[in-house]
């Protein structure tokens, strides 16, 4: 499963409004449901994982990475990205507040590794992450990813 097969313009939304971290995960999950990547159960599973792991899903400053298990309702591997209109606290003192949420769904351990590797490469480029967070349109954010496709 390559990176370009897992993300498309339909699964990117910028300046999303959310009152708390749960709603932020809900909103990113809705994009995954709308594009037939996961069942509704996956959203609740992502929230449960975040409740259990709490702060650990904020893997780099300003970026939350909610995910759950394949059996929690994944139809096809994908990820979705939202940027938040107002940054939200997820409870991670080092990496809060969160400005961008990347919902991730995988089917098994190996299939999605290429795509995850690409995502890690992107997130380790701080300049690029800042640009993504500050994108004015969905297309602009998608264009930053295109360099990696």
């Amino acid at each position, binding site marked *: 499963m390559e990176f370009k097969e897992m993300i498309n313009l339909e699964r990117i939304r910028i300046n999303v409004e959310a009152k708390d971290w749960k709603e932020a995960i809900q909103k990113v999950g809705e994009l995954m449901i709308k594009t037939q990547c996961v069942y509704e159960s996956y959203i609740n599973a992502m929230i449960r*994982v975040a409740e*259990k*792991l709490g*702060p*650990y*899903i904020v*893997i*780099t*400053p300003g970026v939350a*990475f909610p*995910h*759950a*298990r394949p059996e929690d309702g994944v139809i096809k591997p994908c990820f979705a990205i939202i940027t938040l209109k107002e940054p939200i606290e997820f409870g991670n003192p*080092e*990496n809060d507040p969160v400005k961008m949420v990347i919902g*991730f769904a*995988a089917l098994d351990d190996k299939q999605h*590794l290429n795509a*995850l*590797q690409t995502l*890690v490469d992107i*997130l*380790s480029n701080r300049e690029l992450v800042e640009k993504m967070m500050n994108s004015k349109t969905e297309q602009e954010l998608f264009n930053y990813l295109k360099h990696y496709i």
Partner: protein
Amino acid sequence: MQTKRLKILAVCGMGLESSLVLKMTIEKALKELNLEGEVTTADIVTAKGAGFDADIIITSNELAQQLGEIKVPIVTVKNYVNVQEFVEGIRKVLNI
């Protein structure tokens, strides 16, 4: 250059994608340090048992506390994708 293959265990809360992200950053850090190593992933519960088989454990601050007292040196990281933070942490525990 060290010839011994390091065994590194990446630990996250559930052993899902987050520990894979850790693993990928660890592999980049090893490359930068010119070290050979094998990186495995585990959730916190498994790690408490399997951890003893590793040379180094890499995890977050909070999870490190949950691991309790173990003999394996632990590198704690804040930013899961910051290669430099990992490089420095590994250097510190290996004294290189």
